[in-house]
């Protein structure tokens, strides 16, 4: 493909990765979509950013992005943080695709640790950056054994962790990267999104892809697939609630970040999803 835009870098293939690599990653993605929640190994490439900055997500995005796509990148819900800005600029330069900060306008969203508050719709794709894909890793360190546990659907050990939480603290203390069961079959790490976002994954009309670059795994949740958070019958799954509302837009139902504003302990709560906050602010101003 030729780079037509004057702003795009020359000397690179469209979207940085070579076509052969993209095909390899697409094959992994197809397999992942065919087996929801199953971790497909893939030959992860070196990317021009360090591990932990989203090398997995960026490879998935690079393999599926087209010239007509509109890309949105968020980091902890915000469009203007270092990670989000860098990755967005990376695709502006290497693919020349349009970018946006508005969830509704994006056809492709790469995210680190949040799902946008605005509900996703069909034909949108959301790509998660995953640090550790294996949900059983802290329960069972041996890779051969965790694979066997997945193959035989032996997930009791995961409940042991939840049991320990309740025994020690009276409630399940896992608040992010909360393990989920996909399509009633595979246990999956939803990447470090807050558990607040877990219910959004269930029966979501968008395609959800997960890329772990260092661990070399890709997995997926196809549209309209059931995603259940693990819990006990007498300790059901709950999401975070805040007594405060967003300082900027007044939202009471979005995920709030606590921001300390001075050294005397003054703090405010603001929406973690900056686009959501802005849209609400604009709607309010228009009234």
């Amino acid at each position, binding site marked *: 493909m030729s780079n037509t835009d004057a702003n795009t870098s020359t000397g690179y293939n469209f979207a940085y990765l070579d076509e052969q690599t993209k095909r390899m990653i697409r094959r992994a993605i197809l397999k992942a979509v065919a087996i929801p929640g199953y971790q497909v190994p893939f030959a992860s490439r070196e990317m021009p950013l360090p591990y932990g900055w989203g090398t997995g997500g960026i490879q998935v995005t690079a393999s599926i992005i087209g010239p007509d796509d509109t890309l949105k990148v968020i980091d902890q819900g915000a469009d203007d943080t270092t990670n989000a800005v860098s990755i967005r600029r990376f695709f502006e330069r290497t693919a020349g695709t349009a970018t946006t900060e508005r969830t509704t306008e994006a056809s492709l969203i790469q995210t680190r640790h949040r799902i946008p508050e605005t509900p996703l719709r069909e034909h949108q794709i959301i790509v998660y950056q995953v640090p550790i894909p294996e949900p059983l890793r802290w329960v069972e360190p041996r890779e051969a054994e965790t694979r066997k546990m997945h193959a*035989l659907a*032996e997930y*009791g*050990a995961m*409940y*042991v962790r939840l*049991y*320990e939480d*309740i*025994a*020690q603290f009276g409630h399940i203390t896992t608040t992010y990267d909360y393990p989920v069961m996909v399509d009633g079959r595979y246990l999956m790490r939803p990447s470090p999104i807050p558990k607040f976002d877990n219910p959004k994954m269930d029966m979501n009309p968008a395609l959800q892809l997960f890329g772990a670059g260092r661990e070399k795994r890709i997995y997926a949740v196809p549209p309209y697939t059931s995603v259940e958070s693990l819990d*006990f*019958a*007498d*300790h059901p799954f709950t999401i975070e609630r805040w007594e405060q509302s967003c300082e900027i837009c007044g939202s009471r139902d979005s995920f709030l970040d606590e921001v300390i504003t001075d050294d005397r302990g003054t703090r405010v709560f603001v929406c973690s999803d900056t686009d959501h906050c802005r849209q609400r602010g604009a709607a309010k101003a228009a009234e």
Partner: protein
Amino acid sequence: MSELSLNDVGYDAEEPPLLQVSRLCKRFGPQIVCADVSFALWPGEVLGVVGESGSGKTTLLNCVSTRLEPDSGRIEFRLRDGRIAQLSEMSEPARRMLMRTDWGFVHQNPRDGLRLGLSAGANIGERLMEVGSRHYGEIRGAAADWLAKVEIEIDRIDDPPRVFSGGMQQRLQIARNLVSRPRIVLMDEPTGGLDVSVQARLLDLLRGLCTELGLAALVVTHDLGVARLLAHRLMVMQGGAIVEAGLTDQVLDDPQHPYTQLLVASMLQ
């Protein structure tokens, strides 16, 4: 071994055995560790295996529990529905399921059989969660019940086993195995490494539990005292083969094989 048959041991074989091991062989390279071992175990029966160190007791136990694959021989287990399953022919999921429901394995060193990073309650509840229990209150209730049964104070339920004494760890390991109501328990030197008074208490407890739950148990030990207290029947192993088998008192009071005679004679009085 060849002239000994299962009926020689004087056990009523009207009821089919729970576990039937026939002609089990295991070698490590040229070293023969188990030579043509056959025995049967009936429900509610405790079978002791004694012999000097290196006689193949533990290897036999590991083969029976499918931790090791025997070179030849059959291990048949009577399932709850009465069917006889040959362990080596079962599918892996079915075998793993069986091992965590109907079977228990008590290691010599409790640290091998426990999850030291988890609390005592979680150690006991793990098997329940593995077979699908998803109710916290019920799991905790069962854990508390079993702690009481193995005489551990209830307020230790959230303590990790690494702060327990050796005897408590061993009792916790037993509770962890018995919570799923297994029908057979394999024990490798269950009292090894415990001091004599703790040993006596543990033996007492084990004997009570076996009777109460109608457990079949295969107990490997080098301690004839333990064998006499715990086992109904006894097998004496030497060099990988069973040299003598019979009722415990019979074997210990009237040993026939020269090796058994030596073993009994060397016991401290």
